[in-house]
Structures are given as C-alpha cells and as structure tokens.
C-alpha cells in the first residue's frame, strides 16, 4: 500500500542543494592560515586598527588582517592563548600577570575630563577630581558651582581608559554610587544630558555636546600632551608572545611607519614615540 501513496516530489531537490551549499561553505573555509594576522583587544583602538588594516590590505592583498574587539583585557589574554597574533591594550601599565614578552607602543591617547555644558566649572585639580570620584565631594556647590548633586560617571573595571585614569590620579576606591557605562559614546551621552554629571573619555571624542574642563589649569590639547604637561595620557600597545610572525611584523611596521602614524593622527590619536619594550 505504501507503494501506491504518492511520494512528495518537491522535497527531493532539497537534500542535494543543502549538501552542495554545505560543501561550498566548508571549501571556502580552507583558507591559508599562515598569511593571516588577527588583532584583538582594546575597543577604543579597534576602529583605528580596522582602518589601518584596510589600508594595509589594499597594498598587500595576500595578507589577511582581521581585527576583533573585546576590551584591553581580552587583548592580553588572546595574545597569551594564541587566539590573536597581536593583542591591543590601552593601559598605562600592563598588569604584572600579563607575561607578554614583546610590546610595541603604536599610539597615545589623551583622557579628557568632561562635564555638562551648563555646568559653570571650568577647572579642576587632580586632587579634586580624585575626591569627586571617591565620593568625598558630593555636590557641585562644594566646588563653587550650583547646588546640584554630582553624578559620577565612570567606565567598567576592565576598561583601559578607566585603569589609566585611576592609576594616574592615584589609586582610590570608586564611589559606590558611581554610574558605570561601558563605552566612550555612552559616557558622552550621559554627561551631555545630565547637568550634574562628570565623566572622562578619549579626548578625540570631545564634541560640542559636552565641555572638557582644564585639569590643574591645563586644557587637553595635542600640544600640551606632546609636551608632557597634560598628565592624563595613556599609550596604546600592540602585544605579541615572543617574536611576531613575518605577517604580523609587516603589519606592525606599517602601523609604526609614516603612513600608519599619519592615519592615526588624522583621526584624533597621538603618534607613538617609537619605543619597543621587551618584557
């Protein structure tokens, strides 16, 4: 009786098509791994790295440069466990348990301290900033401003920007009531909208929506950072376990070379002092 039931004819083409597609996908995956470089880590530097990778790719199409994010700490652990050939980290000092033998500084970035444009305060000392962030000063009127509670905005504890900020200011415990945001963009949006807020971010992202205050009387400008006077600055590292592979070395040389550094500068970061630190 089963022979008399009609077979569902439309189904028969589906299986071969599926197998063909699957084979195609797998075949395309057998890529040559030796000429590929993966970078992972600092989300602040990720867009810059992508732009550099695109430019490098145009000149060297046989090398495959892929950029991932995840944060500075992911960069360190990816370099250690081999998931990435180059780890990117934007930290003032690398943590002691990151036993990375080779570190290249590829750029530097200033950290601007920002407040809402409606806030009259234009200048803060580092000690005062630390007190605000530790929760010792809670109202703008204690600083000569309006009677308004201070909304402290900081970054997540894995952020390179945050650990650099806290390290430079001197170790302190962040106030419990501080609002934590997970990116420069959302810090900026929060401060832009809350008249009582204070925050910090990459100085290349300062816009008209917020106001950057002077720190110890010094505004955050390229000249003052390069002169070493403005102190809230952090380097951006490329980290490799041991000697970088030839493909990775080619890319690192490009980034440290004139074309790479010009691209970095054009988008708001500072050029590196080409120092190679062996650890």
């Amino acid at each position, binding site marked *: 009786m*089963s022979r008399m039931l009609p077979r569902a004819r439309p189904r028969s083409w589906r299986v071969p098509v599926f197998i063909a597609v699957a084979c195609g996908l797998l075949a395309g995956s057998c890529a040559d791994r030796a000429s590929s470089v993966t970078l992972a880590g600092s989300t602040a530097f990720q867009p810059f790295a992508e732009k550099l990778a695109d430019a490098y790719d145009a000149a060297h199409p046989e090398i495959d440069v892929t950029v991932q994010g*995840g*944060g500075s*700490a*992911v960069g360190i*652990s990816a370099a250690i466990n081999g998931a990435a050939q180059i780890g990117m980290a934007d930290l003032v000092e690398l943590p002691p*348990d990151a036993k990375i033998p080779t570190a290249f500084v590829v750029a530097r970035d200033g950290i601007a301290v920002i407040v809402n444009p409606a806030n009259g305060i234009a200048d803060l000392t580092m000690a005062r900033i630390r007190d605000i962030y530790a929760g010792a000063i809670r109202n703008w009127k204690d600083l000569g401003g309006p009677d308004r509670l201070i*909304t402290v905005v900081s970054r*997540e*504890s*894995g952020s390179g920007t945050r650990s650099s900020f806290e390290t430079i200011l001197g170790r302190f*415990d962040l106030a*419990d*009531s*501080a*609002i*934590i*945001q*997970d990116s420069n963009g*959302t810090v900026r*949006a*929060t401060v832009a*909208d*809350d008249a009582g*807020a204070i925050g910090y971010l990459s100085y290349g992202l300062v816009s008209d929506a917020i106001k950057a205050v002077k720190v110890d009387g010094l505004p955050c400008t390229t000249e003052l950072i390069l002169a070493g006077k403005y102190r809230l600055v952090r380097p951006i590292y490329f980290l490799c376990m041991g000697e970088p592979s030839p493909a990775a070395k080619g890319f690192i040389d490009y980034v440290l070379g004139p074309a790479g550094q010009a691209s970095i500068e054009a988008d708001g970061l500072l050029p590196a002092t080409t120092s190679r630190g062996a650890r």
Partner: protein
Amino acid sequence: MKAASDRIAERILLAVACTAILCLLVIAAFIFKEGIPFLLKVGPRDFLFSSDWRPDAGSYGIFPMIASSLWVTFGALAIGAPLGISGAIFLAEFSPPAVVQVVKPAIELLAGIPSVVFGFIGVMVLAPFIRRVAGGPGLSVLAAAIVLGVMILPTVMSISIDALRAVPQSFREGAFALGATRWQAVRMVVLKAARSGLLAGTILGMGRAIGETMAVIMVAGNSVKMPASPLDSARTLTANIALEMGYATGLHRQALFATGIVLFVVIMILNASAMAALKRKGAARR
C-alpha cells in the same frame, strides 16, 4: 516494513532529543564547573548576602545585584505581562481576523529589534525623560523595567495569542449556548483552558527579562550600590557578569560564573513555582 520505518523514525527522534538535551546539559555543567569551586572557597553566605563588591580587594558580595535583578524583572513583568496578555485576548477573541493579520506581525517586528537599539533609545529618550520628570540620574531601575517590559511584550503576546487560538471553538460555543456574553465566555472558559499556554508565554518572557544584558547595561546605571528606590541606579546580575567578564581572571572570573549559577537557581525557583501553580489549578491536558 512500515513498522520498521516507524521504529527507525522513533530511534532517530530519540537521538535528536538526546543531542539537544546534551547541549543544554553541557552548558549547565560548564557554568557549575567554573562556579562551584568559588562557592566552596568563599562560601555562599558571604557571596549572596554581603553588599561589598570589590574584586580588587577580594570581596565578592552580590546582594545588591540580586535585589536589582529581581526589582527589574518584576517591574518588566508588571508592564509586559498584563499588556501582553490583554492585547492577546483582545486580538484573539475580540478582533476580526483581518485586524489580527496586520497587528500580530507588527508586534512580532518588535522582537526583531536588537536589544542594543532598545538600550540606545532608552539612553537617548527614556532616561532623560525620567530624570526631568521624576529626578535622580535617569539611568535607573525604572528605566530598565520599562525598556525590558517593552522588549518582552512580543514574546508574551505571540505565545498568548497562539495559546488562546488553540482553545477549541467548541468551548466557546458551549458557553454561548448557555447564554454567556463573549467576555464571560473568555473570562470563565477560554482563559482557564489556555492557562498553560499563557503561563508559558509569561515564563518565557520572564526568562528573557532576567537574561537580558545589553539593554540593561545601557539604561540601568550599573552602580554597585543597593538601589533604595526605582529611581536609583542599579546593577543587575547579568550586567555584573558582562561588565567584568572581559577583565576577570582566576577567582574573579569564577565569581562571575558563580553569579551565573545564582541566576540559574533563581530561574529554577521561578519556574518550579509556576509549574506548581499549574498543577494545583488544573490537570495537564494529556
């Protein structure tokens, strides 16, 4: 011959079911394997009931996060469940099919919008609104509850509509034959018959609310302090994990997996009470 193919089909399906369940078990095992050593070392009491979360100093107290997660989830349910189920009843029982054909896909569209978009709208529109109207930083438990409530609406409503539609028409006709109005039929007959489906929708919605990470990180403020009111900034268990996972190593990372265990246990308790409620009120349909 037919019996043979039937048995083969049954074996294959059994294998499939076992594979699926195996996947789910592997995840559970993974979370527990990473988190249990931590609980044994630090002790559940300090972990769960201390309000001191400072991993750098070695203290891992997540009590404020537990409270925040519960506040935010129940707030989301308070918004999402009544709206979702009411809307489902209206669409399934009181609307012409043409209306449902248009409205249901429109609401399911909401399910496709990424949580980060909701989060971003929350930051740009909702938090400032709350700050202006009610005070506080705006980034708060209330903001998170509203955003999550809207996010779980399609889940609750979709599954509820399907559950209501699955109630056989004969149930309603029986009620009409006894002289009930449409609303009485719905209230006294249909809702009871669809109860397990409605509950399923709510539970899945609740599951989504507890597990939501990105949107909550963007609008809840993430401060480690215990929230004293819905207008306070708060950090949920999921936000805690996401914010620190990329950074944490060793004991700190294990602490975050232990947080995952806590989430798992909380969900198990919630689901168990839902199932118990079902059992008490009505028999399973099969």
